[in-house]
């Protein structure tokens, strides 16, 4: 380990004080040394480095710092030390390295203003994106041979088929929870038998589609944003445009169609599996035989409950895919942006889905599908 730096104060004949430094003047020992030097009384006439064995830029900086503080000269520096002193002497002493921080009364309006302008350009961007998709769809209708069928099938597999296990498991568990918790509450009114109505109606009308939409947003919406965002960063999308291929046609439209269509199937599948979960609870805990439970559902659930779910599903799928693709194509600059946009895609998709679901609930009740 390095030998610590030392200092001594020597009175010279002319009435000034000479600071004599010795030993190792390097980063490893500078911490305690700085505190010791801070306490020395002024004024100093000269700093003598003749006895310094080793010095690095930090040591040189320290020497310059004392020299500046006491306005004194430096003598006895060896060539190596002299070189280091010359290298660091010119820089003005400041410990200002943090980001620039503005006062609150400036920061808040600036942040608000930025948000407002971002919202404005965001709305313009979404409208523009819709327009691009409509144009792309129109041109595909005119040239049906260009339709990216392969990409569509591939996306349908990714969004739909490979989501079956996780959505099935989730729905089964939700069915179980609803049946079990619902029966505990209904028991208090002696209405355990109504558990069948509860499970059947809530899964078909609300939860099946809603939970599936949230799952698809997390699985596929995020994947869309990350894929397109990365393609944007690696200039793949620019390359497509240069060749004359529309990224909207080959990337966005297959994803949107796949998500919209598969959402209908997944939503229905989810509702069915949830009802099976409820029926299992009915069989095990409530004494309603499995097949009786399912047969009762047919009697107590009106057909329009199925339509409510099936009408909402494609809308949710569309929202999730639009949010994913739009945010992916908005990526600019660096990889951090991909993460930010992916998060934004999922959050805005789930938020929009839940808001729309509330509107749908009111709407369907008003038209008599209560």
């Amino acid at each position, binding site marked *: 380990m390095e030998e610590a730096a030392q200092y001594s104060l020597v009175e010279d004949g002319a009435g000034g004080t000479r600071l004599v430094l010795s030993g190792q003047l390097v980063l490893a020992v500078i911490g305690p040394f*700085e505190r010791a030097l801070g306490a020395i009384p002024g004024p100093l006439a000269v700093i003598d480095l003749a006895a310094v064995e*080793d010095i690095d*830029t930090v040591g040189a900086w320290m020497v310059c710092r004392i020299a500046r503080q006491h306005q004194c000269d430096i003598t006895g520096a060896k*060539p190596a030390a002299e070189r280091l002193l010359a290298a660091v002497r010119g820089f003005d002493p400041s*410990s*200002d390295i943090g980001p*620039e921080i503005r006062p609150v009364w400036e920061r808040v309006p600036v942040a608000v203003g930025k948000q407002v302008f971002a919202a404005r350009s965001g709305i313009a961007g979404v409208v523009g994106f819709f327009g691009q998709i409509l144009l792309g769809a129109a041109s595909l209708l005119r040239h049906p041979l260009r339709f990216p069928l392969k990409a569509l099938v591939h996306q349908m597999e990714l969004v739909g088929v490979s989501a079956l296990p996780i959505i099935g498991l989730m729905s089964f568990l939700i069915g179980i929870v609803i049946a079990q918790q619902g029966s505990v509450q209904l028991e208090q009114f002696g209405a355990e038998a109504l558990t069948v109505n509860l499970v059947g109606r809530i899964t078909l009308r609300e939860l099946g589609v809603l939970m599936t939409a949230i799952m698809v947003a997390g699985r596929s919406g995020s994947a869309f944003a990350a894929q397109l965002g990365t393609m944007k960063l690696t200039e793949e999308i620019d390359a497509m445009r240069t060749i004359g291929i529309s990224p909207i046609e080959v990337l966005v439209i297959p994803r949107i169609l796949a998500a919209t269509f598969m959402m209908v199937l997944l939503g229905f599948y989810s509702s069915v599996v949830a009802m099976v979960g409820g029926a299992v609870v009915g069989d095990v805990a409530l004494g309603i035989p499995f097949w009786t439970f399912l047969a009762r559902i047919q009697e107590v659930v009106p057909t329009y409950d199925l339509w409510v779910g099936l009408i909402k599903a494609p809308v949710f799928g569309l929202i999730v895919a639009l949010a994913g693709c739009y945010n992916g194509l908005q990526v600019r600059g660096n990889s951090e942006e991909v993460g930010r946009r992916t998060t934004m895609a999922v959050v805005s998709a789930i938020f929009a889905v839940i808001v729309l679901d509330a509107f749908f609930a009111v709407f369907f009740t008003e038209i008599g599908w209560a």
Partner: protein
Amino acid sequence: MTGHIHSPDEPPVIVIEGLANRFGSFVVHEDLDLTVRRGEILGVVGGSGSGKSVLMRSIIGLQRPAAGRIDVLGRTITGVDLDSGIGVRRRWGVLFQGGALFSTLTVGENVEVALRKYYPDLSPELRAEIARYKVLLTGLPESAVAKYPSELSGGMKKRAGLARALALDPELLFLDEPTAGLDPIGAANFDRLTRDLKETLGLTVFLITHDLDTLYEICDRVAVIAEKRIIAVGTIPELIATGHPWIEEYFNGPRGRAAHAAHMRGEK
């Protein structure tokens, strides 16, 4: 030993013996030997995918070699956990290809990270002062100190990365393609900066590069990686004299000749 003039008989800074690196069945290095002398700038060249970066990663402990022995600054680092405090990490600095700056910290704070970790007894003001002059030492303007990496250009990021590599006053500096992606003026300036810092601070520099101008202008010796090992080390005339076909093509190709001609003009 910072700031000293080095004599050639001092012990070498890096000694590599019989190094082997494999990824699965793909062999990157086999029986690779290399010695880096104190106080020199050693350029490392080789074709794309020849394992230059893997070699550097092996030396700095990011890649565990399949076989062989690596001594850095007098310590054996193969088979040793670098986190266990053998203290060699604080004696080297590394500049990664893209700068690899921490994006959530300002440039100055980036430099401060290592100081904070290894020397917690420094007063915050002195630590920040040190970080600041290190940034200025690499030729960045004062306004860059408090900026975030995303606000800097590519060349400025490299300088900021260099400042971070210099944070602990290292004896040994690793530079991975420092001039890649810089315009010729920026690249020449960076070369000059590397040489000036090496002379002022008494550094040893391990420099991976594709830039022939860098090799001619600032490298004391050049090591050539090919066929999974170092096929030759020496000054550029010595390398050309070996007559190896790859080296021949590398230095006597059109780019090599142009760099040589530029170097000769500079000498005059």
